[in-house]
C-alpha cells in the first residue's frame, strides 16, 4: 500500500476568493456522494407504513384534488387533454423538482455534523441530495404510464426527451440547491423562505394549468425555467401538440446560468462553512 501513496502530498494554505473545482478530487470522493444518496433513499421511508407508496400517494392525491377544483368546478382549458393526466404529468416533474430543491437547500445544515468533523468536497452534499428524488420520480412515473393506457395515449418517439428534460431539471434543481444551501449556512432565513418559494413557484408554473392560460402574463413562463421543462415533459409523454423546443432551450439556458453561478458562489464561500455553520 505505501507505494501508491509515496508521492501523494497535500499542501494546505490559506485560500482567497474563488477556488477552482478539483475534478479529480470529486472523482476520488465519489463514494461519499453515493452513500449519502443511498442513505437519503433508505431513510426516507423507514418506519412508514406505506413505504415507497408515498412517492405515488403525494402526486396522485394532489392530482385528484386539483381535478375536482379546476376541472369540475372552474373548467380549466387543457388543450384537449383530460385534466387528470394533464395535471399528473406536470405534478410528476414538479414533485421531483420541488423535493430536490427543498432537500438540497437544507442539505448543508442537515449535515453540519459532517461538515465540522470530516473533510470531503462539500459540494457533494447538495448534489447528492438531488439524486434521491429520481427514484420517487420513477415510481410515480409508473402511475403516469398506467394513466396513459387508461386514456389511450400511445408512446411516440418524443419519449426520448423525458430523460433529457429530467437531466435539465436536475441541473436546475442542483443549481438552486447550491445557491440555497450555501446561503442557508450564513443566513437561516433561507430555511423559512424555501417552502414559500416552492409554493409560489408551483403556481406560476404550468403544472396544473396550461401556459396559454397566462394571457398577458405570458412573460412569467419565459423567465420561469420550469415552464419550458414542464411543457416539454408533458408533450414527451402525451404528444398532442408540437413540442415547444424554443421554450425548452430557453429554460435550459437559464438552468445552466443558475447552475454555474451557484457553483461559483458555493466555491467562493465553501471554505467558511465549518466556521459558520
Amino acid at each position, binding site marked *: 500500500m505505501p507505494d501508491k501513496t509515496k508521492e501523494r502530498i*497535500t499542501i*494546505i*494554505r490559506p485560500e482567497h476568493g474563488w477556488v477552482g473545482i478539483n475534478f479529480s478530487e470529486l472523482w476520488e470522493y465519489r*463514494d461519499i456522494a453515493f452513500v449519502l444518496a443511498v442513505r437519503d433513499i433508505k431513510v426516507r421511508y423507514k418506519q412508514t407504513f406505506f413505504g415507497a407508496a408515498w412517492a405515488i400517494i403525494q402526486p396522485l392525491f394532489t392530482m385528484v384534488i386539483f381535478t375536482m377544483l379546476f376541472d369540475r368546478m372552474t373548467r380549466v382549458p387543457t388543450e384537449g387533454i383530460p385534466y387528470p393526466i394533464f395535471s399528473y404529468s406536470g405534478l410528476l416533474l414538479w414533485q421531483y423538482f420541488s423535493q430536490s430543491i427543498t432537500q438540497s437547500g437544507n442539505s448543508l445544515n442537515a449535515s453540519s455534523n459532517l461538515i465540522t468533523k*470530516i*473533510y470531503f468536497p462539500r459540494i457533494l452534499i447538495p448534489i447528492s441530495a438531488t439524486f434521491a428524488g429520481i427514484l420517487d420520480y420513477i415510481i410515480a412515473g409508473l402511475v403516469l404510464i398506467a394513466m396513459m393506457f387508461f386514456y389511450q395515449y400511445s408512446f411516440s418517439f418524443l419519449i426520448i426527451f423525458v430523460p433529457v428534460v429530467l437531466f435539465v431539471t436536475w441541473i436546475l434543481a442542483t443549481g438552486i440547491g447550491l445557491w440555497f444551501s450555501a446561503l442557508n449556512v450564513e443566513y*437561516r432565513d433561507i430555511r423559512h423562505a424555501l417552502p414559500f418559494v416552492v409554493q409560489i413557484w408551483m403556481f406560476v408554473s404550468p403544472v396544473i394549468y396550461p401556459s396559454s392560460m397566462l394571457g398577458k402574463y405570458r412573460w412569467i413562463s419565459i423567465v420561469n425555467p420550469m415552464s419550458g421543462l414542464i411543457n416539454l415533459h408533458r408533450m414527451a409523454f402525451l404528444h398532442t401538440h408540437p413540442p415547444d423546443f424554443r421554450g425548452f432551450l430557453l429554460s435550459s439556458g437559464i438552468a445552466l446560468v443558475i447552475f454555474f453561478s451557484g457553483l461559483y458562489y458555493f466555491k467562493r464561500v465553501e471554505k467558511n462553512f465549518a*466556521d459558520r455553520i
Partner: protein
Amino acid sequence: MNSAIKIRNLSKRFNLGEIRGYKTIRETLQNMFKLRMEKQDVDYIWALKNVSADIRQGEVAGIIGRNGAGKSTLLKIISRITGPTEGTIELKGRVASLLEVGTGFHPELTGRENIFLNGVILGMKRAEIKARFDEIVDFADVEEFLDTPVKRYSSGMYVRLAFAVAAHLEPEILIVDEVLSVGDIQFQKKCLGKMQEISTKAGRTVLFVSHNMSAISNLCARGILLDHGKLIYSGTAKDTVKIYLEGVEENKTKKMEWTAPDKKYPFMNVVKIKRFYVKDAKGNIPSGRLFNSERYDAIIEADLLQSDGRLIFFITYYSDDGTLLFTTDAHDTGEINFSQVSPGPIKLSVPVPVELFANKSYQIELVSALHYTGWILPAGNESMMRFEFFRDVDSNPYSNETRLGFLAPVLRWKLSRL
C-alpha cells in the same frame, strides 16, 4: 526519516462575531450600514499563532494544552475541515481524522448500513470495508444487532461500533481528538491497544489529542504543548506532560485560590463566577500543601444574575498525572436548586474529603455548565490548582509513603473472633 506533517508558521484567526452565532440577512444589512457609519474595529482572536512543527513518519505525537489552547483548531486545519489564515501545512499520504465517534451515523439505519456509511465518510473505499467487514463486527462485538437500527443501540454499543469502524482505517496519517473519553474502560484499553498497533506495526503517523495525561505518556513518543494558540514546547511525551502539569499550577507555594480573570465567559447573563478557593478551619487560604489533620472547604463565589435550573457546578479531583479521580456535583445532595435561588452574590462550599487522599500530589478544578446547553468552565480549564497531600496524622504504624493507587481512603476495618 521523512516528515509526514510539516507545519510552517500556521495561524488561524476567528472573528468574534462568527463565534457568537449565525446571522440573518437583516443583521448583515445592519452591519454593512454600521460599518460604513462607524468604521468600528472587528474583534478577533488568534486561535493559533505562528505554529511550526514537524512530525516524522511513523511517529505518534500527542498534543496537549488547556481548553482553548488551540488543539482542536490545529487538528481541524490538518484535517482540512477549516482553512488556516496564514501559513502552510504539508501532508504526506492519506489523512483520516477521527474528531468524533460515529460521524455520519444515521440513527434510522442499521448497524450494517452504518458501517458502510461511516466507513466511506471516514475515507475507506467500499471494497475495503467489505473486505474488513467481519473484522469490524468482531471488534465491535455487535453481531446479533447488525440489522437493528442504531437508534435502538445502547450508548456503549453505539460507541463500540463507531470506534470499530474507525480502528480499521488504514491511512498514512491518523488524527484522533479526545474520543477515547467515551466508552467503558475495557473498550478504551482495546482502542488504545489498536492505536498502538497501527503505529508500531504499520508505521503510520498518529496525531492524538487528549486530556488524559497517562494515555499521552503511554501512547505517544512525542509531545507538543500548546498554550493560547502558541507552541510552547515540543519534545518527548513524558517531558511535555511534565512541563504541562508544572505550568498549569505554576508552583506549589501558590495559594489555593483562583480569581476569575476579567474576560468573557459563556452565559455571563446567567452567572459570573468570581472566585474558587480552598480554606482551612480558621478561614485561611492554604498554599498547595494540605494535611489530613486539618479540615478544608472548597468554596465557589459567584454572582447569580438569573435563577436558572440548568446551572451546574462540579469540583473535580485529578491525580498528578491528570487522571480524573472523581467529581462532586453541587446537586449531589438534592438540596440545591438554582431555579429557586434568587439573583445576587452566592457562595457554595463543600468539604475537601481529606480521609480519601494518599501522600501524593493532586489537582482540583472547578467545572461549570448550563445543563444540556453549554460549558461555562469545561474540564481542563484555568481554574485547575495543584496541591500536595500529607497524611501527617496516621493511625497506621506501617503507613508508607509509596502506597499503590491514586487514593488511600481510610475505611473501617473490623476484627472479630470466629
